[in-house]
C-alpha cells in the first residue's frame, strides 16, 4: 500500500495559497476559491499538510488502496 495523498477540506480552507507555493510537484492549485490536490501528481510528501496554518489538509489513501 502506498502513502496517503493530500486532501484539502474545502469547508476549512481559506485560500491563502501557502500549500500551493510549497508543493514540489505543482500538484496543488486554486479551484473554485479553495485549494485542490491533483491526486495523480501528489507524491505524498506531506509538506502542504504541515504548512497549512489552519489544518485544512490531511492525508487520505487513494480510493483503490483502501
Amino acid at each position: 500500500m502506498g502513502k496517503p495523498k493530500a486532501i484539502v477540506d474545502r469547508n476549512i480552507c481559506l485560500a491563502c495559497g501557502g500549500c500551493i507555493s510549497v508543493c514540489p510537484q505543482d500538484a496543488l492549485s486554486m479551484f473554485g476559491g479553495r485549494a485542490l490536490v491533483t491526486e495523480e501528481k501528489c507524491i505524498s510528501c506531506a509538506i502542504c499538510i504541515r504548512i497549512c496554518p489552519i489544518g485544512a489538509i490531511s492525508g487520505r489513501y487513494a480510493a483503490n488502496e483502501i
Partner: protein
Amino acid sequence: MKYDVVIVGAGPAGTVTARFAAESGAKVLIIERRQEIGVPVLCGEGVSRKIDEWGMLEGKRWIACNMEGARIFSPDGTMVKLSAEMAGNETGYVVYRDIFDQELARQAAKAGAKIVMNTNAIDLLREKDKIIGVKAKQYDDEIEIEADIVVGTDGVESKIGQWAGIDTRLDPKDLETCCQYTLTNIDCKEAYCDFYLGNKIAPGGYIWVFPKGKDVANVGIGVLGNLSEAGMPKKLLDQFIANNPRLKNGNPIRFLAGAVPVANPVETVKDNIILVGDSARQVDPITGGGLTHCLEAGKIAGETIGMAIEQQQFDKETLSSYETGWKEAFGKKLKRNYMVKEIFLDFDDKTLNMLADSLKDIKFDEISTFALVKALVLKHPTLLMKLRPLMKISSEA
C-alpha cells in the same frame, strides 16, 4: 482579441503595473479570478507613510488609522519603542486593504487598462517555445488571450512564473504561514503597531497587533514553515489571545489565513515575461511586508513595458531594465534582510531578551550604529559575539 500586455492578478502589483503601462501607451488587460478586487483581505494592513510620496492613491478612504510608531516586545515582555520613521515598511498607516486595492484598480482603469474578473489563468499560451499569451477559464469557458508581454502578479502562488520556467517554488523555511483575526471590543487607544517575538510565541516569526480604530485591531501570527505543523499558527494565536488581558475579551469580525514569501527574490524577467510583487518574492524577509515593494516595482515594470512596446522588443534583454530598476530601488535591502533573517533565527529567547533590554532606553529617532553598539556592549557584552555577523552585513551594505 490581442493586447500589448496581459496582467494576471489584480492585487497592488498588478494594478500599479497596469496603470503605468497604460499611461505610457500600452494596451493593457488585467485578469483576476476573484469576484471582487481586494476581497477577501489577506493582509495585516500595515504600510509605511513612504507611499504618500509616490502619490498613487487618492483621497483618504483607504486609511483606517495613523500610527505613531511600533513597539516590539521580547519574550519576557521588555518593550522597545520605535518612531514610525524608524519602524520600517509596515508602520505608518493601517489601511483597509480592500479599499486600498480597489483604489489602485480605479487608477489603472482611469489610465485605460481593462479589467476582467472571474477569469482564472490556467496556463501560458505558446507558439512553439515562444510565450504569446495566457489560457484562462472564465466561468465554464476556456479562453485564449494573446499578448506580447505576460505579467505574473499572481501573488504567493506564482504559477505564471512556474509555467514560464522560473523556479518560484518556496522552501518551507522561506514561507511564513499565517492567520489573523480582526478583533473588536479591545483597547487600542494608543496608536502603536505591536510586535511580539519569541520562539514559543511564534517560532521563526512574530505575533502582530495593528490597530484599525480605538477598539479594533488586526491580531495575527506568522510562523516559519519549517518550524510549523498542521494548524500550529492558529493554535498559537488562539493561545496568545486567550492569555492576553488586552485581547482576551475581543470578538472576531474577520478571520483569515495567509502565506508570506520570505525568500530571496527570483529571476523576474524572461522573454515575454515579467514578474512583480509576491510572485517575484519581493517581500521584506524580516517583516514580511510587501505592499511598498509592489508599488515601487509595479511603477518600474509599467514604465519598462511602455518602453518595450515603443521599441516593439519583448525579449529578456529589453525587459531587464525592469529588473535593474527594482534592484536599484530595494534589491540590496531584500538581500541584506534575508541574511539578517537567517542570523535572527539562531537567537534563542534569552538573546532576544538581552537585545531588548539593551535597546529599550535608546531614543530611536536619533540612532546611529555607534550608539547602538555602545548600548549593547555596556549592558550585555556577550551579545557582541552574537551580533558580529549582523554588524558585518550592515557595514557592507
